[in-house]
């Protein structure tokens, strides 16, 4: 069963208050749930739709358009590894392969201990700092294998 906590309800009220039309709160509410649960379940889609008077299908349709939403549980840390041109020119492909091997998962996979999920990502606006990756909300630039080791090993 999916429910919003009283704290969520407070947040939701604040978010909905930002817009003259409720529907605008859709992406923020999806994000709210995902930041809480790590992913968005069908029950959550229904509950969000209920809040905003949108059909569950509509919620799913919008959600599936955006790549940052997950429909299944993910790792505690989500790594978005940029492979776009500026990073590619500076060796991103090899570093991504290195990371994948280090974590023992394929791109798109989650480690058994549910700690890391690794995604290949399009340009994240850190081009002059490429190769780069985003781990949860934090951008890490000018990556090297040593730097990747240090970052990943430091995460609890």
């Amino acid at each position, binding site marked *: 069963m999916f429910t919003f906590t009283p704290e969520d309800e407070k947040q939701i009220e604040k978010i909905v208050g930002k817009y003259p039309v409720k529907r605008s709160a859709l992406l923020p509410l999806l994000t709210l749930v995902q930041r809480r649960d790590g992913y968005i379940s*069908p029950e959550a889609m229904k509950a969000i739709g209920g809040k905003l008077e949108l059909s569950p299908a*509509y919620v799913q*349709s919008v959600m599936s*358009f955006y790549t940052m939403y997950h429909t299944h549980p993910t790792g505690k840390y989500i790594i978005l590894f940029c492979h776009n041109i500026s990073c590619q020119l500076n060796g991103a492909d090899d570093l991504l392969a290195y990371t994948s091997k280090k974590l023992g998962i394929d791109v798109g996979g989650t480690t058994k201990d549910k700690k890391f999920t690794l995604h290949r990502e399009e340009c994240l606006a850190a081009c002059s700092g490429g190769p780069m990756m985003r781990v949860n909300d934090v951008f890490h630039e000018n990556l090297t294998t040593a730097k990747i080791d240090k970052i990943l090993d430091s995460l609890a």
Partner: protein
Amino acid sequence: MSDDNQVNITINDQPVTVPKGTLLVDAAKEVGVEIPVFCYHEKLGPFGCCRMCLVEVEKMPKLTTACTQTVMPDMVVRTESPKVVKAQQGVLEFTLLNHPLDCPVCDKGGECPLQDNTFKFGSGTTRMEFDRADNDKVTPLSPVITIDRERCIACQRCTRYSDIIEQEQALVMLNRGFKNEVHTFCDEPYATRYSGNVIDICPVGALTNTEFRFKARSWNLDNAETLCAHCGCNCNMTLGSRTNKLMRIQTRPNDLVDDGWICDKARFGYDFIESEDRLLEAGTVVGGARKKVNALDAAVQVADSLSKIVDEYGPESVGFLGSAYGTNEELYLYQKLFRSVLGTNNLDHKTYQDTPGLPIDHYDFLNVETANLVLLIGSDPAEELPILDLRIKKAVTRRGVKLAILNDQKTALDKFAELSSTYNVGADGAALSALANGLAEGGAGDESVTGISAEQMKSLVELIRSGKKVCVVYNPASLTGNSIHMLKHLLSVIGKIPDIECGAIPAAPSTNAVGAMDMGILPDFSPGGTPADKGLSAMEMIDKAESGELKALLMYRSNPVVDFPGGKRVEAALKNLNLLVVHDMMETETSQLAHIILPSNGPGYDEGTTTNIGGRVQYRRRGLNTKNLPDWKIVSKMINSLSEEPVEYITSFNVTEEISEKVPGYGEINKKSIRKEGKTREPVTSVNGSVPQVEKVNSADQGLKLRVATRLFTRDKILSTSSPLAHHFLPSTVNVHADDAAKLGFSEGDEAVLSANGAEVRAKVEISNRCNPGAVIVPMVADDQGVQGLAGGGSVSWVEVKKG
């Protein structure tokens, strides 16, 4: 001549003048130029995603999409220039890139815009050398619709339909880019009331009719342009058959009626046509056993028996119970038989009170869109008149029309309403009077009686007063007791408000309810609303049958044992008759009691006219052949065997001719005038009687008031358990207000037993506040649910609700 609203342009060197705002794609049609389209659909509006309609417009730097570009003065358009041809070939190549080339086995073959456009505008070869995207092949989208995602060209017609027309957003695009796909929420069935229309608008074979798949090729079908016979909208449709078997039903757009759509009951609810329960033979019951007889002989026997009873007991001893499911011709002839030949005024077709004619204009469907305010009274269009439901949603969402609702139950349209007031069950008369008074002289009525607060009443009054054009849509069948008179009074009060244009639509759910009234199947009015000496109403006929004063009844396509309030009492009364004749197309609980049985052809096989709730008379064409006689022939046989002036009709249109001569309002109705879009009959004059007192709702010592709600998909004689629409059937439920649920100790999902009149109905409790406290709403979900057995008839019925 210059007209501000007209624009002159040239298309391929041909001049054309069209109204401002016309899209290029439509302007081109005016001069016979075809611009290919996929995503564009007139009813969905411009979208511009498929890029098939690119054209060249002088002074525009890029090619433009003709489906999104409106005409501008002196525009010079080319649709066949080398640039355009290259673009069209390019777009077609893209469109076909991942589309399977399986036309020979595709249901859409022969009527596929993709196939046609490829033939006309394509290059003939493909340069695709990779595996096509491997999207899912045939998957059920619902029990009646199959989706072949591999064939989808992502035109978004279907998803836009679900969004814009249905206002359901049930069918949506998931994902993005080349991964986008048409889906429902988590692949639940796409089960709206009007889902089937997506089959017709899909420009490829991606959405197909599950029943029709692989049954026949479109070009081998015999297509009859006919009407739907399920409800009072009378939507236009095409019945496709092959070797006299019904293959499929499709839309046949008529903007004046259906706006191009039909509901799923129209499209998929036809299994009754071949049902095992059909009455196909005439019969007489001798010693409890039914004996097959020739239909004409049976007709003569009916006529003789009726006339004998009249001779012996007088004309008041016989009666006719028709139904709003017959055509005007059939009903007219029966009316003639009983009124003119047998001399009785005991005719009726319904269990509620109603009078013909309106004190204000009789509005049609278009007025719903052009009004400023639609006032919906006691009506639940989604369940009763689905295509009216779509029209109201269109009016509200796309024409800026306001909607005000006055009802005893909450309905699906409430969320589209500016104001929605719920009166107490049974307080319709009081609420209507209060509103009429409020409009005429202020005041808000007694909230303790009506259930509507003074504040709400005031807002409603203001809303009506400020509507420049008001369209009242009311369902007479939902009104109790004599409330129809309060309603008509309300209409005349609205009609007298200065500076208001207004009209009404009497939105009774049954197919030909308006026609049945017009044809004089009423105890107190002969055809065309001409007052007649009062005969017995339907419920009175049941009473008199019970008391033995009524000796004979002819039931035409009516099943009172299930459909009338009273249940067992009705059955007993009918058993009491000397003669019960049932003329029907299905074996029913009532036909089981009959002494003489006559088969009726019914929709699909019959032909004749019906009059929809907007007053439009249209022709229901035969789509299938039968060896059985048409109903009108059986009735004329009865007339001829008794009358000095024999009638001679060669086709049903001869009856229509007589109607046009004899029935006020139908003077202009004839084969020619109704051929294409039908024709509105002249409104029937309304008789303005005095407004009776509001009936006092008798209160019971215990129990709750009962409101039986109509459902579109009911397990009955029309939709059987084996219907492809069976997934819409609901279990028996009772909607209880939270206050009452608390008093009765009910929680959601509890089993309840409702009892009254010695009848019992079991139902699951839904705590829903669908009505005001003090009442329950029971949707009629199946014949064998027996909910009408709880009702007493007349005004308000009370039921005892207990835990089961």
